[in-house]
């Protein structure tokens, strides 16, 4: 066990549990709900992959206070998130931006679906003419080899 592993464990332990501390709560429940929704999308920068909604770390508490203050001041979600990214970079948001830099990230699954569908369609259209056997013959041969194998 080395120091880094220990540090990771301590960070993990410190970051346990949630944001809903009654002492910090906003008086207006709709504003509080909005703040909580934003918390879930903001990363606790010193934790091991946790949002500030889940984290008990000091920095997460500071970020929650900033977000609550701005919600109270009537700023929009986009404005608050913009403020955070200006200060801490894209890393602070749990949702990656829809930007050209993230094209592979957002487009990758789509490409897999489209190319899979393309392959399936080409497979469905391929004529049996390019094999030596007609489908019936191939079926018989396979039937024979299967009985042979089992």
């Amino acid at each position, binding site marked *: *066990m080395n120091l*880094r*592993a220990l540090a*990771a*464990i*301590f960070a*993990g*332990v410190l*970051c*346990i*549990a*949630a944001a*809903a*501390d*009654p*002492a910090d709560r906003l008086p207006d429940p709709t504003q509080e709900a909005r703040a909580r929704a934003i918390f*879930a*999308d903001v*990363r606790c920068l010193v*934790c*091991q*992959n*946790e*949002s500030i909604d*889940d984290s008990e770390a000091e920095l997460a508490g500071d970020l929650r206070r900033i977000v609550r203050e701005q919600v109270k001041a009537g700023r929009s979600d986009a404005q608050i998130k913009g403020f955070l990214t200006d200060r801490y*970079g*894209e*890393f*602070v*948001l*749990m*949702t*990656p*931006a829809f930007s050209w*830099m*993230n094209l*592979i*990230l*957002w487009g*990758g*699954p*789509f490409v*897999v*679906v489209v190319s*899979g*569908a393309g392959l*399936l369609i080409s*497979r*469905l259209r*391929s004529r*049996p003419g390019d*094999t030596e056997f007609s*489908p019936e013959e*191939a*079926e018989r041969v*396979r039937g024979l*080899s*299967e009985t042979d*194998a*089992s």
Partner: protein
Amino acid sequence: MIAEVGSFALVLGLAFAIAQVGLSAFARVRRSIPLAAAGEGAALASFAGVAIAFGCLIYAFVTSDFSVANVAANSHTEKPMLYKVAGAWGSHEGSILLWCFILTGYGAAAATLGRGLPQGLKALMVAVQGALGTVFLAYTVFASNPLLRLATPPVEGRSLNPLLQDPALAIHPPFLYSGYVGMSVVFSLAVAALIEGRVDAAWARWVRPWALAAWSFLTVGITLGAFWAYYELGWGGWWFWDPVENASFMPWLMATALLHSAIVTEKRGALAGWSLFLALGAFTFSMLGAFLVRSGVLTSVHAFAVDPKRGVLLLIILALTSGSAFTLFAWRAPKLSPGGMFAPVSRESALVLNNILLAAATATVLLGTLYPLIRQALSGEAISVGPPYFNLTFAPLMAALAILLPAGPLLAWKRGDARGVAQRLWVAALVALGCGLLTLALISPRKALGALGVTIGAWLVMGAGVELIERTRALRVPVSDSWRRLVGLPRGAWGMTLAHLGLGVFVLGACVELGWKGEAAEALPLGGSLNVAGYHLVLETVGPVEGPNFESERARIQVTKDGQPICVGEPDRRFYPAGGQTVSGISLCYRGASHLYIVLGERRKTTAGTPVWLIRAYWNPWASLIFLGPVIMALGGLTSLSDRRLRLGVARRRKEQPA
């Protein structure tokens, strides 16, 4: 002395693994049966060696032999016995030894059970399995031996991380690794088939039981991990799209795809190349998972036992084994026969769609896990890929899969009857839609996504029912007739229905829990109360409790609903002096399938000086289904595994009835 015996046995295990490769490969070249038998013997001997080494490590943990470095770092004399044993796989070194133990175990099992296989294929499979054993054992012996001694043994050990001292997590690694490493047999069979140049229905039939066993173990392993996170981390979450979770989820998705594509290869001889690809991919993702979890390249809430330096070695192992296997695949796979034809509406097409969606889902998880690293390398900027990304990409893919799923088993091979399927499913579809609309209209008009989830879950459960009705021809033939059909159903069919039902149960649980969970938190003095989801919680007492290796403060919370007492919650907050950590022990109050989840937080002082405790309570509706669903799925896997048609070695000797 015992540790030295273990080290010696470990080296012997490595030597036998090397012999296993040489003997079996040579047996294939010479087509020699005695040599092949010697190779299989070496596989057994290698397993015996590693088993002895593993036994020695467990012995060192049980007896708290702190002269062994690994024991000193991960155990403590006051730890309960279960966690002493579990400590053997709680560290990097120990977990890799567990990996080797299971790997050589599967190798020995494949050598003994695979009697129905052709000589050449089997010898190659044993050789490849031996090569995998050699690589991982060499890594263990030279870079990560858990049995090394300390020059000056400490009086007391440093103990296992208290978060890991939990029954579910104690047995989580053996299950998870049995799943990961089970894919190695599938991998070896695929490489052997590529070398032989023959992939046919018989190959797919040999692969299936191993894939099924590994998949079932992996399902249980992941569920145990999720359940542990649910009640141990203390905020009621069970899946965080965390890299460590993703690492175990990717091989699961690949194995699920393989189980489905192997059916097409077995029954219709088609998709042979794709099945091979998945067979190689499943174990590749298992190794990638081990690398990601153990190397610490990605930050995670639950990365334990991390070591970056040795991560590089694991990466080299991954590149070597998977790289060579996929090179072989690229060379040999184009020569494989394409297999039988099928129409756009057919069981084959449905299974191909299943595979496309599962492959895309795997791509999503892979990209979401690794893209931050790629982006950092490309532009130097750090980004986060969190749950919102997966909700936007993975969830729609799975929803599409779930909507298509009930139709698949009802379609015929080669050319299906879309209209017939629609006729059989319309009642199920109506009921599912009804459930969704009722939820939307009566319970919460603003939770459209939750209602959609309920619709899909109900659709899956109904679909599994329709599958069973179709197979037994219930409602169309006399009851006694249906009963006879029901009893006579092959276990494989039961397995499939159970697995699909389990998915439906899981979807229902997950969507209801996510959509309708309630939360409340207050700083309560003694006698204070808070309300969540109609339940009234009163903090009655808080007192100290001595644990075996921790000190704790335990609260007693009376829960009532409409004045009726429901249960008493006793959450605690534990302090482990050995490592200086504090962990909260939550209390679960079961209400049917729903949970009332109570956490005791820190003690504070009010301005007046009276002590208050931060109490958080969550209402998690239908949360039990989240964990029950995967258990049903794994049971389905095991039921299917027990099908006589799949048992290795049996198929060849008994004359089988045509399916």
